[in-house]
């Protein structure tokens, strides 16, 4: 019984590790999303674009989203929570024609 009690922390570690592997999925989405600062120029956020390097998502008081599934705020499904604004860092990001 004492032996088992001593091993509980290790068992806790193993269980938590198993849950981490079970409930965490690496980001594998290959779908492009879109962001804009002014709703005129839409930037394509593909697999090569890095958050924090090519663009930022900051908190905003406006009821908008940082990224959308289509280059249109009214028809495109938002990605992520509301009150987030897109901020361009890399002006060489591809844009929608």
């Amino acid at each position, binding site marked *: 019984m004492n032996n088992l009690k001593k091993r509980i922390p290790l068992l*806790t570690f193993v269980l938590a590790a198993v849950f*981490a592997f079970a409930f*965490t999925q*690496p980001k594998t989405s290959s779908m492009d999303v879109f962001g804009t600062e002014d709703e005129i120029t839409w930037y394509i956020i593909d697999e090569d674009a*890095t*958050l*924090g390097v090519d663009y*930022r998502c900051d908190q905003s008081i406006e009821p908008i989203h940082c990224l959308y599934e289509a280059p249109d705020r009214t028809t495109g499904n938002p990605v*992520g929570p509301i009150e987030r604004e897109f901020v361009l860092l890399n002006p060489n990001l591809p844009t929608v024609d």
Partner: protein
Amino acid sequence: MNLRQIIESIILWLLIVMWTYTGISKLIDFASFRGAILNQPFPNEIGEYVSLVVPIIEVALALLLIGIRTRILGFVGSVALMSVFTTYVGLVWVGSFERIPCGCAGVIERLGWQAHFILNLFVLNLAMIGIMITKRK
């Protein structure tokens, strides 16, 4: 088993679960975590190191907490790391930086900065209680 031992065990298991889960999940979805760190209001050069070092330290703390001889070190490390996290989250929450970033992934995003600060403070207190109880032995 007396009350102090029960409290110590609960705190120990909570910290092990927290550090293990958060550390390993950050390593599994490293791209998202790295992006969330680079989105924070400190230079990306620092962010690149932070995104690698933080999950490794978290798993290391969990391992230190498992060992009986290294447990006190695990508690001290937990207090140190939680102090850093709590201070940073608090500074973001009160608007000390020129902008308020989104967490963009994980717990911060769901909780918001204020709730995350309160949660961090709670865990920090647990870790400090863990040190006090373990030292008394």
